[in-house]
């Protein structure tokens, strides 16, 4: 085998090796992910994270749990809406409605608590200035147009990132969850009395979920684009 072919094989093997190492950790992360990249050097293709076994709470583990609970809550709420929508056909089972709504609340409370942990851990870790500088120079308009992102929500994320306002960003994530929770509590008070909440309440809750979810998703999308 001549030298050129050997070199070629080595390159191919190295590329394959790097791909294999990184791919299990490049699993999709859907909402608010890569937030950990804003603090310290914690955002790399590392092999360290197993949140089920790790005893050291990391920014990343809290973010993943927060996002996971948040999706669970949204899933519960969609199931709740589906039951309400079909009530004209199938009748209303208040016991079932209560169970689903309580689950939505429970998951959102857990999501919020995990994000509070993100804030706490982040407060003890220095910011990643390089990343923040990138975010301040990022072409937000081009990015939004390229991917057809929803402008009002994207603008909210942009207004925080473009100013490097990371505490403001974290506060907004929690405020979004608080807005959902507050409305869920209102719905719960009615369902507890065996009453289906007024549709206008259900619409506003749905919109709050939508805004909270896209806010977190756009944050992930922008951070990923800057890595």
């Amino acid at each position, binding site marked *: 085998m001549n030298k050129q072919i050997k070199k070629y094989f080595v390159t191919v093997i190295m590329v394959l090796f790097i791909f294999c190492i990184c791919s299990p*950790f490049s*699993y*999709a*992360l*859907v*909402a608010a*992910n890569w937030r950990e990249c804003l603090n310290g050097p914690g955002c790399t293709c590392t092999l360290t*994270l*197993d*949140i*089920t076994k790790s005893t050291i709470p990391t920014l990343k*583990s809290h973010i*993943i749990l927060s*996002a*996971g609970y948040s*999706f*669970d809550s*949204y*899933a*519960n709420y*969609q*199931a709740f*809406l*589906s039951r*309400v*929508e*079909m*009530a*004209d*056909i199938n009748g*209303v089972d208040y016991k079932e409605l209560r169970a689903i709504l309580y689950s939505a609340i429970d998951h959102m409370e857990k999501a919020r608590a995990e994000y509070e942990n993100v804030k706490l851990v982040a407060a003890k870790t220095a910011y990643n200035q390089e990343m923040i500088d990138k975010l301040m120079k990022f072409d937000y308009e081009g990015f939004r147009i390229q*991917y*057809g*992102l*929803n*402008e*009002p*929500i994207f603008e909210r994320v942009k207004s925080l990132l473009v100013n490097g306002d990371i505490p403001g960003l974290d506060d907004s994530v929690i405020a979004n969850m608080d807005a959902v929770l507050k409305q869920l509590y209102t719905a719960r008070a009615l369902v507890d009395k065996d*009453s*289906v*909440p*007024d*549709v*206008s309440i*259900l*619409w506003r809750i*749905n*919109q709050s979920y*939508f*805004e909270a*979810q*896209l806010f977190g*998703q756009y944050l*992930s*999308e922008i951070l*990923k684009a800057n890595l």
Partner: protein
Amino acid sequence: MNKKVKTLMLRCFVVLFITCFCTQLSLARIWQNWRDCINSNDCTEDSSTSLLGTYILESAGYFLKSNAAYQEFLYCVEMSESKGIESADFKNALYNAIDNMKKSNAAYSNLKTASEKIPYNQEMIDQLMKFDYDGFRIKNGLNEPIFEKLRAFLSKGDIAGFDAAVIANMDAILSRLYELKVSVDKGMVPEIALIWRTSQAYTEAQLFGQYMSEVFSDILF
């Protein structure tokens, strides 16, 4: 019992009866509802009694179930980093999302076909064309880009275009769900970019239908 007490009791009974009766009828209509009002002689508050109303309830119910399943799928994706790929969970959630979206699409296609045989309710269309969309959007804090898409159809009375847009939204979601299925069937987590775009398509389609219900509700009640 004197007359006054009897009258008071009767009044209480009537108020209670009306309250109970109305509560049953005011069960929430979350998505695409009151679409049946665009076709004449088919607009009742109790949508379940009309043919179009039944299709709408079915379509909406399945759509919401599909989104619930997709959120479960997102949960699996998010947790895959820590728990690994639970192939069965992934598949179940995604297959559920696809199955329910197909049913929702079929129900709405039935609605469209049925609707084409019934004349439009011109009075309702006139009201839609005169409706204060900007005022309504601002008052209720609705998402502008999604609301504007809806307004483009309703303010022109373009009901056929609206129905076509609803089906196109579902088709777009389905097409992305099938793309996701290819990866999931191979035991792989799909590309994050595809997951994001599917997620956005769901939420936008849902708000599109929800805002339609909101506008109709405002005009009707």
